[in-house]
Structures are given as structure tokens and as C-alpha cells.
């Protein structure tokens, strides 16, 4: 019998809907795989075997009774980043401060997944409150890259991408504030998409930086990502920044792309995202990818986005500023951790002691950085200037998209780095997101799709594709065409062992 964990979500859905296999069998196969390998990968913070199987059996029951599948992915299980609230299932955001918290409500994304019949296998590991690029900032220990257990799986959504690369789940949900879907996708050899800001509801997504956060699909193929995108996207009146417009035709675009013809598509190579500071293997992989796009019929031109060099500094002002405010609610009063409440201390003292104990160093660092950037004397020079840079970045994108349909760059300058290598050097860590951040600042859509292995170290590299806001379908058209022209990267994944 085929190993169910090796199939794509589209294949699984087809087998489930044709009753060749049951959703429960598929779910069980993945739960077994988790039990087998997750001790070494540590992609999951919480596995909800019972809930997942119950959801799978509900899908099977409906199909058995002759009902049509409730969605294109009904019965296909998935892994959910632990930053989205799940009623009745712990949600920790990788933080001590929320250890054991069981939300009394579902995020809109969670609700849509449940309604579409996707069993939730569990909650995936992440950098604490999504702050990081390596998943080492999780209070519950790092996730390991399935390609090399001594390396990081990227971050903040390292757990989601690693669960895909380790075949623990066929689909996963991530969130991307500065690259947290795309960069882990790149370094694990999987696909990750940051939809247009406002395309997927943020209701129930525990906020890191509200104006940048966006949930999106993670998968092993572009088509799978498109199918998942369609399930979670769409207008939500509970999120004021949700766009009230039709979801771009992403699935149709992916299918169109799979035909392998990019004639008529204009691709812009961003001059500023590459060259110095980029690993040679990454750079070569990117150049080969560009050649491949040309071979598929695309017209390729170089495009300059002169302000992209200011994106990283702007991001490291805006995101910490917003996070300093968003994380103020973790104060030991209404939920979450409370320490030192011995009856002698005031609420103020207990707040400060709990926040000190509940947050890790990166979170504290960003809270203090944001507090500083918003202070009355510094606001204009820091936060205000960063918001101006954001305007400039958007203008760069607007000008570029006047000339081309999509922009491309490497997703991240290097392949997966070693665990521990950058933890004490925040600035070096921040460089991981240098290519992905502009799209968060401007709100447009972007994808990372595997572009083979780096000839420097044999580790996966990602190709980033960027499209204008609300033109997410272009990512899928180009991404699927490119993917179809290449050998699947994950076929070269070394066999995972049960334990390190």
C-alpha cells in the first residue's frame, strides 16, 4: 500500500472523496508519522489526535451517507501554527506566558478549516509570538530542520514548514509578518505563501505586528497551497482590515501554471535583492531559476527598487512598536501565567515580574525597542520615519508592477543555518528576512517555491515570487509552472530517523 504521508493534499483529497481511503486512515497515518519522527523534529507543541480523528470520521460519515465533500480538501489533515486560536485546544504562541491557555474561541481561519472538514492534527512550534527566523525562540525548545537536525527550520513558522518536510502533515498554516511563512518554506524545501494583506482574516491570529501579520498556506506543492489558500481566504467582518472582494482565482491559476507555459508573463528581477551577502549557492540557484522562467516563455527584465535597502530597518521599528503594544495584554490579570502573587505584592509588581518571567529575551528586546521607538521624543525619528519608508517601498512596488507582472528574488540570502549560530546576534538573525520584508511592508502577495538545493551545502533554496496586492493568482501561475519544470526537491530528503 502507498504511504499515505507521501501523497500530496490534492491526491489525498481525491482518494478520500472517491472513498479509496478514509479520512480517518489518512489522519491516522499522519498521527503515526508524528509519533515516529516528531521526537527528533519537534514540529508540534500539541498533538490533538482525538480531535483530528473525530473530525476525520465526521467527514467520512458525511461521504458515506452520500453527501458531496464540503470542500476540495475535506478530510485532508493539517498542522496549524500555534499562533491561531483554537477553541478547546491549547494555544501558546511558543511562549511560557500562554502555557496551558485554552482559548474560548476559534480564529476565523480555524473556523474555516473546521467547516471545510480539515482535521487539525495539532499546533506547530514557532518562535515566541512569531518573533524570530529560526524557531529557536520557542519557550518549548527549537524545531529541527528535517534536512539536517543540527540546523534551524527557519522561523517563525519553523514548526509548520518542518512538519511538511518531515511528512508529518500534508498541509500547514503559517503566519508571515516579515517572512515567517516564506523563509521557513525556503530552508525546508517546501512552498509557503503570504497572501495579500487583508486577504485572509486575522481574527484569532495572536497579533505580533498587526499591520504586517498575515496567515497563509504552507504545502509541498503549489497546487496544494492554492487549494488551502482558497479554503482560508475571503472577507471576514470580524477583521476591519479584511478586504471585501472576491478571492483571486488561485486554484485555477495553479492548474494553468502546471501546463508549463509562461509566454506573455513579464518577470522582474529585483536588482537590490541579491549579490553581496548572499550565499554563492543561493545566488546560483536563483540565477538558474531565472533561466528556467525564461525557458518557460517568460520575458525577464531587471527592475530596480531603490528603497528596498531601507525595508529591514523600517521593519525593525514598525514591528517592535506594534508588538510593544500588542503584547501589553499579557499582564497576568485575566489569563496566562501569573508568578509571585504571594499576597504581599501589588498588581503592578506581579505584572512586571510575570512579564519578566513569561517572555524570552527576543520578545523583551523587541518590546523595549518598540517602547523606545514610540516614546514622545523619538517617535518622529523612528516610528514616523519608518512609516515614511513604508510609503517609499510601496511606491517602488507600484513602479515595478507597472513594468512587470511579478517580481522575483531569492527568498532568503542563505540556506538553513546551524542551531545556535545567530541567537546572540540579533542583527545577523534579522538579515534572514531581508528579501521577504518589503512585501509585508507594502501588503502585496508573495510566495516561496523550492528552487533546488544549494551547490554550496546541498540544502534547499527558495525562489521568491512577488505579485501586486489582490493578484495572488499570479504567484500560483508562475510558481506552478516553475515547479513543474523542476525535479521535486523533497525526493532528495535524507531518511528521517526516529530520534536524533
Amino acid at each position, binding site marked *: 500500500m502507498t504511504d499515505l504521508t507521501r501523497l500530496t493534499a490534492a491526491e489525498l483529497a481525491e482518494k478520500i472523496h472517491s472513498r479509496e481511503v478514509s479520512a480517518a486512515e489518512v489522519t491516522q497515518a499522519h498521527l503515526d508519522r508524528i509519533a515516529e519522527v516528531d521526537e527528533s523534529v519537534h514540529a508540534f507543541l500539541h498533538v490533538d489526535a482525538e480531535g483530528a480523528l473525530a473530525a476525520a470520521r465526521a467527514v467520512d460519515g458525511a461521504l458515506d451517507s452520500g453527501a458531496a465533500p464540503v470542500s476540495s480538501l475535506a478530510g485532508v489533515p493539517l498542522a496549524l501554527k500555534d499562533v491561531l486560536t483554537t477553541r478547546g485546544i491549547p494555544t501558546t504562541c511558543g511562549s511560557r506566558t500562554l502555557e496551558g491557555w485554552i482559548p*474560548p474561541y476559534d480564529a476565523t481561519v480555524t473556523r474555516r478549516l473546521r467547516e471545510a472538514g480539515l482535521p487539525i492534527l495539532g499546533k506547530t512550534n514557532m518562535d515566541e509570538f512569531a518573533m524570530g527566523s529560526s524557531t529557536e525562540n520557542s519557550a518549548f525548545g527549537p524545531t529541527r530542520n528535517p534536512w539536517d537536525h543540527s540546523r534551524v527550520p527557519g522561523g517563525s513558522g519553523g514548526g509548520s514548514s518542518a512538519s511538511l518536510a518531515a511528512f508529518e502533515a500534508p498541509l500547514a498554516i503559517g503566519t508571515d509578518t516579515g517572512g515567517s511563512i516564506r523563509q521557513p518554506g525556503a530552508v525546508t524545501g517546501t512552498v509557503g505563501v503570504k497572501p495579500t494583506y487583508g486577504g485572509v482574516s486575522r481574527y484569532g491570529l495572536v497579533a505580533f505586528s498587526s499591520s504586517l501579520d498575515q496567515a497563509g498556506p504552507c504545502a509541498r506543492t503549489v497546487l496544494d497551497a492554492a487549494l488551502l489558500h482558497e479554503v482560508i481566504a475571503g472577507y471576514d467582518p470580524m477583521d476591519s482590515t479584511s478586504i471585501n472582494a472576491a478571492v483571486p482565482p488561485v486554484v485555477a491559476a495553479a492548474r494553468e501554471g502546471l501546463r508549463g507555459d509562461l509566454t506573455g508573463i513579464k518577470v522582474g528581477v529585483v536588482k537590490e535583492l541579491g549579490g553581496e551577502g548572499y550565499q554563492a549557492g543561493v545566488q546560483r540557484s536563483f540565477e538558474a531559476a531565472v533561466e528556467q522562467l525564461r525557458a518557460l516563455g517568460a520575458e525577464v527584465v531587471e527592475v530596480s527598487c531603490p528603497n528596498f535597502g531601507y525595508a529591514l530597518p523600517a521593519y*525593525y521599528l514598525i514591528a517592535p512598536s506594534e508588538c510593544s503594544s500588542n503584547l501589553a495584554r499579557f499582564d497576568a*490579570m485575566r489569563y496566562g501565567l501569573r508568578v509571585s502573587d504571594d499576597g504581599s505584592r501589588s*498588581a503592578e509588581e506581579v505584572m512586571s515580574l510575570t512579564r519578566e518571567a513569561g517572555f524570552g529575551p527576543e520578545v523583551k528586546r523587541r518590546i523595549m525597542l518598540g517602547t523606545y521607538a514610540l516614546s514622545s521624543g523619538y517617535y518622529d525619528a523612528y516610528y514616523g520615519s519608518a512609516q515614511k519608508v513604508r510609503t517609499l517601498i510601496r511606491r517602488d512596488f507600484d513602479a515595478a508592477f507597472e513594468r512587470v507582472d511579478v517580481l522575483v528574488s531569492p527568498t532568503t540570502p542563505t540556506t538553513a543555518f546551524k542551531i545556535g549560530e545567530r541567537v546572540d546576534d*540579533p542583527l545577523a538573525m534579522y538579515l534572514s528576512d531581508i528579501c521577504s520584508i518589503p512585501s509585508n511592508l507594502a501588503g502585496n502577495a508573495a510566495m516561496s517555491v523550492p528552487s533546488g538545493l544549494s551547490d554550496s551545502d546541498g540544502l534547499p533554496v527558495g525562489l521568491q515570487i512577488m505579485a501586486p496586492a489582490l493578484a495572488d493568482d499570479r504567484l500560483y501561475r508562475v510558481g506552478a509552472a516553475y515547479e513543474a519544470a523542476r525535479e521535486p526537491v523533497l525526493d532528495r530528503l535524507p531518511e528521517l530517523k526516529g530520534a536524533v
Partner: protein
Amino acid sequence: MPNISREEVAHLAKLARLAVTDKELDVFAGQLDEILDAVAKVGEVAAEDIPQTSHAVPLTNVFRDDAVQPCLSQEEALSGAPAAEDGRFRVPRILGEEQ
């Protein structure tokens, strides 16, 4: 430009309600200084006439109807509380005042 002192870090920590240790004060002072140095670069291009972008998508006037929606039950509301009493969240004595 910035040269952030231990005292300033202590002040920030107080504003942010973080009871940081002395050791952290030193570490954070050094790191914040370094980061602020790097991010101050935004000032190079932030000219007077450039508008600030606070929102990634240019939406306006998103309103909700004034219609009552279901609430959480008291039990659900208090389900995550570190301590509760008489249907309320129980917290240590409050010293400060409302603003």
C-alpha cells in the same frame, strides 16, 4: 546617533512592565544601542513631504451594525483566569490610579 544608557533601558523596562535583572540591563543596553544604530538609517530617506503609511491596505469606513452578538458565558470569560472570585477576575491589590 543613539547611545542608550542603562538608565534609559531601566526606564523603558518600567514603561513596558518588565522587571529586568541587572544583567539584562547591560545586555539589552548594548543590543538596543546596536539595533537602534542600524535602524536609524530610515532617517536618510524620510523626507518631510513623504506621507506615513500606517495601513498596508488603503481601506476606509469599515463599520459594524449596532446589533447585539452573543457574548461569552461568565464561565468562559473566566476560564483562563489565574484567579477568580464572585464572577470576577481576582487580582492583587491595585496601587496606581486610572488615567
